[in-house]
């Protein structure tokens, strides 16, 4: 005759080791791995300090990432000590964990004793659904998604590069997106600036972008700067952002931006496009070179096509903007190898992605010095460039 559930539980408990909450309290301070086997919704309501969540339904597949060493001490708990008893038996008998114990009375008894409970910041049910494909990636998971939701990313321009970057960062759940753009939507923008649309011709780009972002993901807070970035406002606008995405179309602003971000120590994900080709690099102040290390001087007007209107393949800013968005996500999450000290060179016609090394210049006029030594007067300064561009028309 099959045993009753009470009998089964009694038999299981007789085969495993149990541990009293008072001992677990001591062991937490010693850094012993504690695993909560309740469902993730239960975990979210509060758990033992430092406990890892491995719901019993996923025990066999996920325990190794929480407790890789099978000979190390491991404590499981649930609400009352029953599910963790079954889980302990599975780990002991099926997976070969040598020192696994189940906490008597579960978190209910733990709370009755007045011990500390950690209430995790977590995602709402809707957020869990929206970001479910992120949560399935171990490098992101809930902790990474919370980092994205906490991140503040400033986009310079809601144009060719800024459009795809803003849309994908919004979709990814970057919590605060700033947009600096003083332009309005023009029909000729729509060949590539996919954040805007035909109904919004003449609308300020910051407003149009906000509308698309909010429609895609209402979680995102949009901060609008309908101004042109210049020396008088740059320090104020850049202050407090975690990452800046540079898609500006002219050299004076690129140098000004570089100098200000070095001073404020904010990483910049920078890209440029022309024709069928794009460049991308990440300038992380003092960890790698800055824009002036790469290009100590701007080119003269005849070699600086940004002075006038130039053609660009419509999909190219999409490609480069999404490479930028990818680098932003990596910087926020602290994963992978960001393109620091490297300039990626994308050739759409050849379908090649090359790269060259970018070295920190020990004599760089900006980043060879301490940030507090960089003055407002010297930011963005180089010989007569704006006059040169203006003269060239």
């Amino acid at each position, binding site marked *: 005759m099959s045993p009753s559930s009470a009998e089964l539980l009694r038999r299981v408990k007789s085969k495993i080791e149990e541990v009293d909450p008072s001992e677990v309290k001591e062991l937490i301070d010693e850094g012993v791995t504690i695993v909560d086997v309740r469902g993730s919704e239960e975990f979210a309501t509060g758990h033992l300090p430092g406990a890892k969540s491995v719901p019993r339904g996923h025990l066999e597949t996920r325990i190794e990432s929480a407790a890789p060493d099978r000979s190390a001490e491991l404590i499981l708990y649930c609400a009352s000590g029953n599910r963790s008893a079954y889980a302990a038996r599975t780990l002991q008998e099926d997976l070969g964990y040598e020192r696994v114990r189940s906490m008597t009375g579960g978190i209910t008894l733990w709370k009755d004793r007045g011990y500390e409970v950690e209430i995790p910041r977590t995602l709402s049910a809707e957020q869990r659904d929206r970001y479910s494909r992120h949560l399935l990636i171990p490098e992101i998971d809930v902790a990474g998604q919370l980092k994205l939701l906490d991140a503040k990313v400033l986009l310079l321009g809601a*144009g*060719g590069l800024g459009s795809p970057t803003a849309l994908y960062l919004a979709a990814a759940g970057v919590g605060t997106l700033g947009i600096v753009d003083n332009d309005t939507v023009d029909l000729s923008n729509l060949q590539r600036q996919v954040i805007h649309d035909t109904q919004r011709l003449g609308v300020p780009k910051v407003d149009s972008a906000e509308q698309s972002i909010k429609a895609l993901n209402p979680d995102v807070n949009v901060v609008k700067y309908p101004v042109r970035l210049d020396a008088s406002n740059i320090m104020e606008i850049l202050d407090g952002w975690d990452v800046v995405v*540079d898609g500006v179309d002219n050299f004076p602003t690129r140098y000004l931006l570089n100098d200000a971000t070095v001073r404020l120590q904010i990483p910049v994900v920078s890209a440029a496009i022309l024709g069928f*080709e794009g460049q991308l690099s990440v300038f992380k102040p003092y960890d790698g070179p800055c824009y002036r290390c790469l290009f100590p001087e701007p080119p003269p007007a005849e070699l600086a096509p940004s002075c006038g209107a130039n053609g660009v393949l419509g999909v190219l800013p999409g490609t480069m903007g999404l490479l930028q968005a990818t680098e932003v996500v990596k910087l926020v999450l602290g994963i992978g190898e960001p393109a620091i000290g490297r300039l990626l060179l994308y050739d759409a016609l050849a379908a090649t992605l090359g790269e060259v090394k970018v070295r920190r210049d020990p004599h760089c006029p900006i980043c060879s010095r301490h940030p507090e030594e960089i003055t407002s007067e010297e930011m963005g300064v180089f010989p007569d460039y704006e006059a040169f561009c203006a003269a060239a028309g």
Partner: protein
Amino acid sequence: MATIKIPPVLRPAVGGEKEVGATGTNVGEVLRGLVTAHPATESQLFSGEGELNRYVNVYLNDEDVRVLDGLDTAVGEQDTLVILPAMAGGR
């Protein structure tokens, strides 16, 4: 013969080519060879004093020649020189 990769802004000066071959045993000679074959590139690459313009980066394969031996950096037959002026343009 080494290969020189020509950036978009210099292509009109070399008949629209993306890559050209040039002879020479060092970076200076290879670039001078390019200038001889395509004189319109000279003012864009070199200053009046014959130095490489500071706004033009030249890479031997993937390394900036400024951290090698500059124009004296040796160039082999199989090497690629990348000429790279700064680009802006994000709109």
